[in-house]
């Protein structure tokens, strides 16, 4: 299966197991900045790891420190392989914008309608740096 998505923030493509979140997440307080593990006990996928995954986000809850958590994950090597968002979240994506300014290797962030997220669940997804997604 191949899909073309809009690029929100350019970056490195990558490959990883899809993680399609069932509920919106707040990165600050919701994701461990040291490990990339989902730490919000109220989130249905608490305990899952976002590091190295192609992360599909149906929505985010806006703590203004979400950018700091994503920047920290990029810096310590625990960022997702790629991020796929239903709609742009300027606070979260700021983490990638700042990481790019720092010259760090950053994952690409794409926009795709959340209705098409389900088809990727459980599959290994390849993302190229021009916004193409391919599920194996």
């Amino acid at each position: 299966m191949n899909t073309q998505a809009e690029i929100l923030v350019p970056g490195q493509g990558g490959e990883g197991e899809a993680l399609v979140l069932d509920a919106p997440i707040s990165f600050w307080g919701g994701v461990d900045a040291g490990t990339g593990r989902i730490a919000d006990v109220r989130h249905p996928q608490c305990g899952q790891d976002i590091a190295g995954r192609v992360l599909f986000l149906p929505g985010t809850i806006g703590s203004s420190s979400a950018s700091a958590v994503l920047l920290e994950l990029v810096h310590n090597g625990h960022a997702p392989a790629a991020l796929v968002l239903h709609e742009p979240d300027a606070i979260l994506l700021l983490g990638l914008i700042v990481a790019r300014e720092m010259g760090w290797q950053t994952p690409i962030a794409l926009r795709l309608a959340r209705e098409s997220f389900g088809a990727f669940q459980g599959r290994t997804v390849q993302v190229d740096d021009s916004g193409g997604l391919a599920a194996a």
Partner: protein
Amino acid sequence: MALDLSPEERAIAGGHRGGGAAIAMRIVAESGRLLGAPRLIPIASAHIDGALYHGDSGTLFAERLVEGGAKAAVRSTLNVGALDLMGCSKVRLEGVPREMARRMTEAYRKLGCEQSWTCAPYQAGHRPAQGSDVAWGESNAVVFCNSVLGARTNRYGDFLDIACAIAGRAPDYGLHRPENRRATLVFDVSALPASFLAGETAWPILGSLYGREAGNAVGVVTGVAHHPGEDALKAFGAAAASSGAVGLFHIAGVTPEAPDAATALAGSEPDAVIHVTAQMAAAARAALSTAVKTDAIDAVAIGSPHLSLAEFDALERLIGGRRLSVPFYACTGRHVLTVLEQDGRRSALEKSGVTIVADTCVVVTPILPTLAGGVLMTNSGKFAHYAPGNTGYSVLYGSLGDCVESAVLGRPVFSEIAA
């Protein structure tokens, strides 16, 4: 719609004023593009929340701006950091994290930010004029700035706050635009008893309820007969911005953009009217507490947002020279600490058992002793919201008077006027 940069903005982004300013301008422009802003607008000041240590990357970013010769182009105050730089309380941050937090502090000083280290900059002399555009971070500071001062800011997150300060610009978007400041929701408290509305606890309780009901909508509170005072509005906004994504509220007859409800609504019908009942207020009050074990308390924390001098006056009156039997943390900024030190008030408070926490607070950095099953009492709606997740303590909510009496006795006592 594409973001249109002026020739000067493009030149700065290209490095005309150095590498640091270029990074800042590019970050502001890129955020503006993601937000769909048509242009950038000049700002009069900034309040920076990004100097709180969350990990090494934030320190490295600030140092990169310093290396690039960046300086804040507008007045920029700093929100709390992870360290008590005045040495009033002991922060249990050691080794590399402590050193990286210290380096972060130093980097923001070199960027030209004022060493205010407070989440109540508006009580430390930073009060932008009504109608001016500013870029403020920290949810309670944002909501106070918009609602009580009538200056215009969005909720600026980490890194974008300092980038706007250096660029002197912000994306023209959201609450900077007058049409987005109109109330679409009415929150009517006229059915609540006057005795409840006149008390201190009404404001954090109603703020917490308001935030849950309003989410990110702009609302107007009606039925408030008298200006409740700035510290009450501070408590209302902080609680509202903890339970909801509130950036701006109006109170008819009290806040500057709402001489009356019709003005706040700009002549339109509201999308929703919430008639607040005594039962709703009582439920909101109950929801502020999470403690199950309520026969003893382990600590009291007050001062979120940071305590004003008037709040310290009230604290001293309530303590009345007595000795507190559990740890009692009073968080404030150096703008208040300096005054308390001038006439021996700090040492008198400390003799009573109060630990003053300056430049930081107990929910953003490890100050409270690690204590499984610990119970923290507070009069702050914001502490009540964040303490369980950030400190591991469960919370009991009560008035300042109840917090003091409970701290004297070591067990919770409540003497509150019910809603």
